[in-house]
């Protein structure tokens, strides 16, 4: 075989999964330089998104409503799944549960899960499970304004800022006094690129509202469903939901109407399907699930949006929802939970759409201090301990 020109080698390498690329770093000096180059990294990500291949599911096992272990299941092509591997989560410590907040490209944002929402200084980390590197966010204190006795997390969310090529974490803390409706909010944003937090002046727009769904990141904007607080308990939202969006680039909040104009009962789950915002509404346990796709989005349609109800749901949608998990992937892929490895247990699926090698390597090049590495010996020791707890 005569030598292939470098542009063809690049094309071929851009189609390989991350694990192969990590192995091939030692093939030769030029391969090492090529694979680590930020332009190649961008190309690889782009290729992965384009061809929809080599995706990995990160599954969070939930028992009794609490998150436990994480598994990764690689699926090179649709409906063909490899074995599930248990993953070591970077924030794992005895006695603390780690929960996945959201994922973007191939970075997963995780934090310590606690039922006590008043602990606003839980550890948060951004993790690339495919290359097994992570970064813990620096602790950030909150500034409680005078006159308020209590604080709680209003929201933390994770997303990718397209304009600045940066991953960001949004933290909103609410300050309140028991039994009184008056609230104050503190909004801070963490930037992965700068590895630091910043307070922003933008205020949480709907002070009388509480988040009633998970957060979802789409096109550089974070989204939540929100609804008014019940008068007596701030933690339980009530009433008609609307959509709250936070643009990560301009750092501003926007409020939209949702296509689903109904009172929140069991709440809405937000997803991204086919590049569009998707609302999965479960009005009642055992009843039919409504899935809405938000077709029109943008400044012009700020106060209205059109929903398209997805008809003819395949029957396993309902099965999936009944066990507490619903999977939607980009495009038309729907995973039949019957095919996943651990079908008996309740699983909460986080959609892990892209294999990304890049974000991690790009940040190294940006002269940001080294990410914490799960060093070989430390890793294997902790993994053993981790697996021992599995009984």
């Amino acid at each position, binding site marked *: 075989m005569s030598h*292939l*020109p470098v542009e*063809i080698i690049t094309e071929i*390498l851009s189609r*390989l999964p991350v694990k*192969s690329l990590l192995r091939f770093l*030692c*093939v*030769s000096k030029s391969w090492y330089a090529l694979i680590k180059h930020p332009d190649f990294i961008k190309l690889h990500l782009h290729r992965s998104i384009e061809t929809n291949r080599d995706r990995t599911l990160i599954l969070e096992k939930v028992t009794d409503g609490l998150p436990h272990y994480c598994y990764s299941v690689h699926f090179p092509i649709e409906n063909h799944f490899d074995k599930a591997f248990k993953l070591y989560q970077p924030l794992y410590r005895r006695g603390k549960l780690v929960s996945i907040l959201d994922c973007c490209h191939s970075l997963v944002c995780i934090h310590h899960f606690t039922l006590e929402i008043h602990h606003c200084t839980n550890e948060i980390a951004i993790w690339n499970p495919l*290359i097994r590197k992570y970064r813990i966010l620096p602790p950030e204190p909150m500034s409680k304004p005078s006159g308020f006795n209590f604080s709680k997390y209003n929201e933390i969310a994770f997303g990718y800022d397209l304009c600045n090529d940066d991953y960001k974490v949004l933290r909103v803390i609410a300050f309140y006094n028991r039994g009184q409706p008056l609230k104050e909010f503190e909004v801070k944003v963490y930037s992965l690129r700068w590895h630091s937090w910043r307070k922003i002046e933008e205020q949480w727009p709907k002070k009388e509202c509480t988040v009633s769904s998970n957060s979802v990141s789409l096109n550089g904007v974070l989204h939540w469903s929100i609804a008014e607080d019940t008068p007596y308990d701030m933690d339980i939202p009530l009433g008609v939901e609307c959509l709250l969006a936070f643009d990560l680039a301009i750092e501003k909040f926007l409020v939209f109407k949702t296509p689903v104009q109904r009172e929140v009962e069991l709440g809405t789950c937000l997803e991204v399907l086919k590049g569009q915002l998707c609302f999965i509404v479960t009005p009642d346990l055992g009843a039919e699930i409504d899935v809405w796709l938000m077709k029109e989005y943008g400044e012009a349609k700020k106060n209205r949006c059109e929903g398209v109800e997805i008809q003819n749901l395949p029957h396993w949608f309902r099965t999936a929802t009944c066990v507490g998990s619903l999977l939607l992937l980009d495009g038309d892929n729907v995973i039949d939970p019957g095919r996943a490895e651990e079908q008996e247990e309740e699983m909460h699926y986080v959609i892990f759409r892209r294999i990304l090698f890049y974000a991690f390597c790009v940040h190294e090049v940006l002269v940001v201090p080294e990410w914490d590495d799960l060093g070989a010996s430390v890793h294997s020791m902790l993994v053993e301990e981790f697996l021992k707890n599995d009984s």
Partner: protein
Amino acid sequence: MALELKSSDNKIFEVEELVAVQSETIKSLVEDGCADNVIPLPNVDSKTLELVLDWCKNHVDMKLDEEKLKEYEDKFIEVDQAVLYDLLLAANYLNIKDLLNRACQKVADMLKGKTPEQIRETLNIVNDFSPEEEEEIRKENLWAFEE
């Protein structure tokens, strides 16, 4: 309209313009008005050119039938390594995007599970790392070799 293409071993192929312009390289020549005479392709031998032209012709014929085209593509790309590399080089030189993509994907699939040594052997690459340097790099991501 027919074009004449000449392979590196001097064989002449008469091809419909519609088929030949699947190659961006040939398309530019046609647009620049340089395609009146025989177009020489010194980087592609006749065996490879014949395969490439078959690909192009089928992409014109089966344009509307996605399934049939996919079946054709899958069968087409099942060739031995030597032929695959020739196709790669030809697709690159002639700038035929879909053939290049398919061929690259095929090679990627072949290389996926290999060890670095196997990669070097298959692609004729010299290892310019010292044993210590290579060991360092392997250690960085040891788990990628172990599982």
